């Protein structure tokens, strides 16, 4: 099981890395934001895997908070856009 979790942690990291390229490439702000959402989702998965792998249950709480606050960030982004363009 440990090997599997190690593999998935590294695989998730790779996934995050690919998402990162999209954040850097853009081209539009929306593209960057959606890639940031991806990083949030990957980050949540990663923290869950790490919580088992490193035997630290508190990381589940971090994952929960990350999930909720990533939603806040996306809301801030689109809310700001709405105000600007309406």
């Amino acid at each position, binding site marked *: 099981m440990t090997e599997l979790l190690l593999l998935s942690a590294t695989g998730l990291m790779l996934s995050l890395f690919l998402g990162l390229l999209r954040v850097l490439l853009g081209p539009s702000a929306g593209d960057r934001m959606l890639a940031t959402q991806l990083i949030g989702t990957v980050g949540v998965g990663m*923290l869950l895997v790490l919580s088992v792998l490193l035997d630290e249950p508190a990381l589940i709480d*971090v994952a929960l908070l990350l999930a909720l606050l990533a939603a*806040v960030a996306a809301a*801030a*982004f689109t809310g700001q856009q*709405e105000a*600007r363009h309406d």
Partner: protein
Amino acid sequence: MNTTNLLVFDGLLLFSIVGLAWASLATTDERRSVILFMAFGLVLAVAWGRLLAPDVALAEAAIGAGLSGALLLAAVRKQSPGSSHTHANPDRNYSESGAKVVLQWLVTLLCAALAGTLAWALLHALSSAPHDTLPRAISDNLVASGVSNPVTAVLLNFRAYDTLLELAVLLTAVLGIFSLGQTTPGYQPAGPVFDGLVRWLVPVLILTAGYLLWVGAHAPGGAFQAGATLAAAGVVLRLTGRSRIGLPDGFVLRIIMAAGVGVFLLVGLTLLLLGRPFLGYPPAWAGALILLIETAAMLSIAATLLLAFVGGQPQSTAVNAAANRQREENSRC
């Protein structure tokens, strides 16, 4: 668990953090920079988790990934649309004199020297002293602290002075925000789907804040993380164009702003009157007192962060009522 097995993971993580930090600083477009910064915050939260520092990871997730992104986006929004164009073309000034180039090199050299000194100091500290004396002192005295989470024990018992002064710094900051005057009107009323998000997100954020406050006593969590989460709920409310965002008016707001420092001081002074050292809790009461102080601190921190997002003194009740009426009319249309 042998940590060397995570070497590839760690390497990629490190690379992402540095890359994102660099990209976010190097871009000239403010909004792009903010989004990169939010991504940076998310990755950093994972990194703190990887370093087995869930307390910091929680704070980073709440503040770095969520709140400061929202704050910075609001700041970009507030800038007048034309202002970014006026200073978007600094190259002309640069080419004028070689003095700038010299200055750039000088700053680079100074930064490198600083980094070198820090690295040397770190290496020195790691190699010379037996660096587990402090953790041992903490774990030896943990029983008397009233909580079982060492981080909370340090923040609110052993080094309570520091935390008190931090709260005082926050109070000063909020006074500065108040001096900016009344807030500008908020955002447009949001569409139904956004509203649907807010309806479940805000109650869940409030619950989570309560949970973090409670869990801080024996596991990672605490007033700072809880306050940031609570503030995030207010931020989301403001984004939907609501003028009432959970902040009370006038006098009550002032009480809440000062509550963190106030309750802390009150507890300290009461203990002093009872013949104990300042903030030297009696072990039997320590747990309850810490919870009391943390609750007050959470409210102050949330109010401070939210006021920072709003960017000024909230409008008076009359204005609020008018805005509310306006909103209702809008939503009826």
